[in-house]
């Protein structure tokens, strides 16, 4: 066990995946010499060479489109999109090619590709550097979409994603890259770990279910702690996988608590919370004491960073939504 940041854990996970399989390639802007603007790929080009860690020209569609060709040739490309807001030039290649090729060819061609996207706000950045575009990818059949919330998961999940024969959009909560360290077991067997496309109860509770993922998990854990001090027991579930959704633990929890709040940084309208609300409302109809409530960001573009703290759902807004579920 080693204590490390999320950034280091992802770096270690990438390194191990590259050691284990010579077909694994890293591609993206500045991922080589620089090690990525967040240093997630630091040192990997030096150790694995330019043929396996490719500094690309500045063109996202080009990165994903050539990765499709590399995957067809038997490689397993791991592409980095520098920031969330820069994935859109590659959107066509992702939704019309990466997502559809396996289906199109009735399984003859596989797309074992990982697209890593640092996402979310809270880092005081300029426009386009703080977005949460996950719902759009989760809406697209053919993609799998996951996100980690801590170093231990990051280390394992990135390796599982690379091992997956399906394309995985891998969202990384950028504001946690270099924050809290946590224990990571670098010797962990992937098969022994929780499977990639599963959710996890990260804090048990009995009064209300709080569903989150990525950067909001930490916020929700803090909220649960604050609530506990006031005598309210919140169960926190980390979705981890946004597509497919593993709602079994959520249903089980809601049947006990009768109340549920879904929190995410993405816009509330048509965000992941909408889908969780629709499914849980249907499947737990008779258990719900209150409607599924959502604590997302507002339905406006991401604001200038001086007021981003007002914009992002924080501990108070999450607890406010929790309180509201008790008003029903």
């Amino acid at each position, binding site marked *: 066990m080693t204590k490390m940041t999320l950034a280091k854990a992802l770096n270690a996970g990438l390194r191990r995946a590259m050691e284990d399989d010579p077909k694994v390639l890293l591609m993206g802007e500045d991922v080589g010499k620089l090690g990525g603007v967040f240093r997630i790929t630091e040192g990997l080009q030096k150790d694995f060479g330019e043929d396996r860690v490719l500094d*690309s020209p500045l063109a996202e569609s080009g990165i994903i489109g050539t990765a*499709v060709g590399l995957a067809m040739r038997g490689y397993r490309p791991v592409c980095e999109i520098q920031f969330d807001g820069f994935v859109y030039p590659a959107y*066509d290649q992702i939704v*019309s090619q990466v997502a559809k090729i396996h289906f199109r*060819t009735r399984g003859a*061609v596989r797309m074992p590709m990982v697209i890593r996207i640092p996402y979310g706000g809270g880092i005081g950045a300029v426009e386009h550097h703080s977005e949460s575009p996950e719902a759009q990818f989760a809406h697209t059949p*053919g993609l*799998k979409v996951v996100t980690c919330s801590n170093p231990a998961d990051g280390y394992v999940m990135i390796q599982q994603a690379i091992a997956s024969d399906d394309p995985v959009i891998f969202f990384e909560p950028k504001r946690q890259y270099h924050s809290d360290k946590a224990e990571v077991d670098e010797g962990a067997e992937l098969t022994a770990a929780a499977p990639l496309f599963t959710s996890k109860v990260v804090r048990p509770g009995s009064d209300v279910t709080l569903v989150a993922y990525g950067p909001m998990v930490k916020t929700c854990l803090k909220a649960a702690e604050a609530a506990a001090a006031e005598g309210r027991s919140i169960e926190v579930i980390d979705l981890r996988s946004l597509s*497919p959704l593993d709602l079994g633990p959520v249903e089980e929890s809601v049947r006990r608590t009768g109340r549920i709040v879904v929190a995410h940084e993405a816009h509330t309208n048509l965000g992941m919370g909408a889908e969780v609300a629709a499914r849980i409302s249907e499947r737990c109809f008779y258990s719900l004491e209150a409607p599924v409530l959502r604590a997302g960001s507002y339905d406006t573009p991401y604001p200038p960073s001086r007021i981003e703290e007002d914009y992002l759902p924080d501990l108070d807004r999450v607890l406010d939504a929790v309180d509201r579920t008790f008003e029903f």
Partner: protein
Amino acid sequence: MGPVDFVQLLTPEGERVEHPDYAFTPDTAGGDGADEAEVIRGLYRDMVLVRRIDTESTALQRHGELGLWAQLLGQEAAQVGSGRALAPQDFAFPTYREHGVAWCRGVDPLQVLTLWRGSAHAGWDPAEYNFGNYTVVIGAQTLHATGYAMGVQRDGLVGTGDPERDTAVVTYFGDGASSQGDVNEAFVFAASYNAPVVFLCQNNQWAISAGSERQSRIPLYQRANGFGFPGVRVDGNDVLACYAVTKAALQRAREGNGPTLVEAYTYRMGAHTTTDDPTRYRMSEELERWKLKDPIARVRAYLTRSGLADADWFGVLDEEADDLGHRLREGCKALADPDPLDIFDQVYVEQTAELAEQRDAFAAYHASFTGAGA
């Protein structure tokens, strides 16, 4: 649109001409003249059969057996010439109109028809033929080809000097496609990594109703000048020149000298697809002018005049074409519809519980219609 300089080895009148940089030198066992004649007859046969596939398919669409058909009429030389220039290990990425290249790669035309009938999205396994699936989103395949070529590089199959191993990639696209960001990014990546890829642009003068001058005010092969690799224009209706020029470009790629843009200057003699009505946007005189440059007629004239094929030979070929037509008509109608249940299983390699559930619901729902027996 004028008669800009291009590489031509066989005139519309069927006369062979010399070019300072290119010659028609097919891969033949012995390399003697008899073999060359055999190859030219082969190219002619390919073009005749491919045209028959095209006319049959158009007819099948008219009879409601296909939902749509994108004709290649007029582009047989560009496709057969380039398609036959490929080595077995080379890989080709087509648009949606490369029925002639599919033919050269050994794809059964009936597999091609599955797409246009609506029975499949792809129709074949690319690895089986070293021939990618048709790509409908304009230009996307040029990046796939570039990436695939980068994979070939990483496999160490460029510049080994072994003709059985050295591998090149070719990607087809149209004059309209040249405007897409993806195609230009493919040029950037291919140049940047010196990837072994040939960009084969069939400039058939039209992108649906847009003339090629809407996409570029200079000859399209010159686009390569902006990206630092060679571009060459070839008479796209001359199968010998298309073969020679593509072969040279592929060889260049195999040797590790990077990308080439080949513009095959040709003409879409038919409609864009069977739903299109070109009389709305182009003059019939234009078509008439291009008919004089028909890619098949000129080879027939050459074979006839030079005594390399006689009426008997042409007659046998006509019968072969008739047989093919018959097989297509019958085969098309017999194509099986996909099983709706399959769609749930083919989204992912690893099925999700969500889709398994939708599959079961679908099955149960349909069973409820087919009656109590289910």
